């Protein structure tokens, strides 16, 4: 190939062979590198501008005292000390966030898969059920949360009214620190449409002959699910878990809207809103980033929380993906 290159250029015939070939090889390699970089450049620019630069700045600002005015002043690990040692709300926010990750992601995946399984089995009216379960996903998060706050209102909400009629206990939902996170989880499960569609597609992709073979071997419905369905859709489950973990680590809108509506400080009266109502039970780390950064203008401390969130997301995701690749290898 180098010969062809040289011949085309008409260089190989007149100069000594070895140095000329080396020179051409180098030239070719450089060109290839340039071409590769040119093709990669949109991605490189994107990653540098939207990922590397913000990450580096966040790390830098986490070491400074900076309120947006003047220049940031380097203050070492003071912000880290403050957030990790002197801010009890940080640990409360971390506990809530991890609670939501664990419970919400597990239930969402289980529920989404369950609904997907049921709907793929339905013979008549599948379209109707698909629509019914998908529709809530289209509701904007704020509207959905306000509607749930209304439905779950402990004093006037229809759900508690119904529970009362049935003689069942009536929880305080968004107004009770023990029930506020389960109420948010209910809301998340109501908007399960996205996961349901993904699971349905993957369930329909499971080769029918594997089911037939399993049936011939005498496998019951549970065994067919365990040994045929599950291995086939496990990449999709992993996808749902990983994206679910990342989404829940960023959980913000629903928690803040539910807190505001339930606490009664929804109007703009200049009152200070207490995030995490009631009693800090819906206080999550993303709310803390907003509160520290854009309400208290302590960018340094906000960057610390953002970095902690980033580190946890990265760690959880890489552990999950590593486990997944091990699982795949043993499968093969």
């Amino acid at each position, binding site marked *: 190939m180098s010969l062809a290159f040289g011949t085309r250029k008409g260089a190989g015939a007149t100069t000594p062979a070895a140095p000329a070939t080396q020179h051409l090889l*180098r*030239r070719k390699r*450089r060109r290839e590198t*340039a071409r590769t970089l040119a093709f990669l450049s949109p991605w490189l620019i994107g990653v*540098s501008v939207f990922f590397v*630069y913000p990450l*580096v*700045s966040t790390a*830098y*600002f986490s070491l400074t005292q*900076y*309120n*947006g*005015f*003047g*220049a*940031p002043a380097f203050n070492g690990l*003071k*912000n880290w000390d*403050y957030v990790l040692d*002197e801010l*009890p709300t940080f640990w409360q926010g971390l506990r809530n966030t991890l609670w939501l990750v664990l419970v919400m992601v597990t239930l969402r995946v289980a529920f989404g898969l369950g609904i997907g399984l049921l709907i793929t089995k339905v013979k008549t009216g599948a379209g109707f059920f698909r629509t019914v379960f998908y529709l809530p996903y289209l509701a904007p998060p704020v509207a959905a949360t306000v509607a749930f706050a209304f439905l779950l*209102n*402990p*004093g*006037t909400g229809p759900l508690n009214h119904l529970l009362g009629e049935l003689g069942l206990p009536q929880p*305080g939902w968004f*107004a009770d620190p023990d029930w506020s996170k389960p109420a948010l989880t209910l809301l998340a499960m109501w908007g399960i449409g996205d996961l349901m569609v993904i699971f349905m597609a993957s369930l329909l992709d499971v080769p029918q002959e594997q089911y037939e073979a399993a049936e011939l071997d005498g496998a019951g419905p549970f065994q067919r699910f365990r040994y045929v369905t599950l291995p086939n859709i496990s990449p999709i489950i992993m996808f749902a878990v990983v994206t679910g973990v990342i989404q829940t680590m960023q959980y913000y809108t629903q928690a803040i809207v539910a807190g505001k509506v*339930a*606490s*009664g*400080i*929804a*109007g*703009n*009266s*200049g*009152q*200070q809103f*207490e995030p995490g*109502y*009631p*009693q*800090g039970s819906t206080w999550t780390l993303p709310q803390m980033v907003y509160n520290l950064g*854009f*309400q*208290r*203008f*302590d960018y340094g*401390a906000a960057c610390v929380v953002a970095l902690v969130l980033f580190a946890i997301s990265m760690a959880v995701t890489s552990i999950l993906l590593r486990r997944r690749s091990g699982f795949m290898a043993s499968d093969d």
Partner: protein
Amino acid sequence: MHPTTSRRGRRTIAAVAGGAVLALFASACTGSSESGGSDDSASGKDVTITFWHGWSQDSEVKAINDTIAAFERAHPNIHVKPVGNVADDKVNQALRAGGDDAPDVVSSFTTNNVGMFCSTKAFVDLKPQLQKSGIDPARTFPAAMLDYTRFQGNQCSLPLLGDAYGLYYNKKAFAAAGIANPPKTFSEFADDAKKLTIADGDSYKQLGFMPLYHGYESTTEHFLGQYGATYFGADGKSNLATDPKVAAMLNWQKGLVDQLGGYARLDKYRATFGEEFSAKNPFQTGQVAMAIDGEWRTASLAENKPDFDWATAPFPVPDDQAASYGRGYQTGTIVGIASTSKKQAAAWEFVKFLTTDTDAVVDFANAIHNVPSTFDALSSPKLVSDPSFKTFLDVAKNPNSGTTPASVNGGGYIVSLQNLGYDIESGKQTDVQAGLAATAKQIDTDIAQAK
């Protein structure tokens, strides 16, 4: 050529990296200038200033536009471009970013941010301008209003209309319970609240008063206004644990909660309340017979016309401070000049007019039913007032009326105190003094972090 390309390549990378670092610092270094620019408005040259404010309802926007029109008539060469419905978050961002679209004059509903505006020099100190214009702030503005517009001697904003808090009471319910006059002390208040409470199973047909800190305007800072408590000592440290008035207030509120049915029952009843700023407000629907609220409620009550007679009075005071009856909590809108503004002279003319021109203040107060923010305007014969509104004018004039002081980290300390209040009323924290000590420590830590 090839080595050059390679060098150029390296140079490109270096330039991109350098650019990124530069951008990092540049974005961090958009500071504010101390003095700001001047303009030629005094010599009659045409100048246009941008004014950001938060008013959004049609009637409010019309009122502020009328005030602007009056200013432009008096200053034909200064033009004001108003931008309405601006929330505080956006104001804070714009003041940090500067630039051509940034405002020259800014008003804000949240007095809590004044400490930040002053200490970061986002707003210019108006003292030299006040002096030059011969305005003595202490003789012009009520003391509490001056308190929430300055921080550590820096008068970086001025009051533009105020809000005062008082007691609203349902005269029909009072008559039914055989109460002749509104309560003046907390013990009278507790008696009346009990008499006015009509139970309905484990809920209420009518509640005398909703004492919970989520009961709309019944907040820790509004109650503390009746005690005249101090939030910070001379050393700038939190006073919450050392000023016995704070513990007294928290204990008084908790006592009221227990007396009126307990936290769980009250909280469940509170959930049946409609939105605060609507006709479904619990006082307007008769769900509560007494409420602590601001002067703006007189306008919505007049508009929504509940099926009972109502009246206002100053909110009661602690028994051991009976002589201070008539006081109340105060807050309001503030207005300042951005230090990034290049048109400071014109901006000052506008701010001076908005805040000190008696007719302008009175007209605006009449239009949006707020309390005027100067002594002259408070006693102006042009002020439209009835007995229910007059209560709030008197609270605003009362020298014992108080406010929440500006702090370097905004309203952070108020939120900390609120959170303690929630823990105490719900029974999560039973040792008030220990709770106050921990809260004061947290407030000091947070303020040290913000410095």
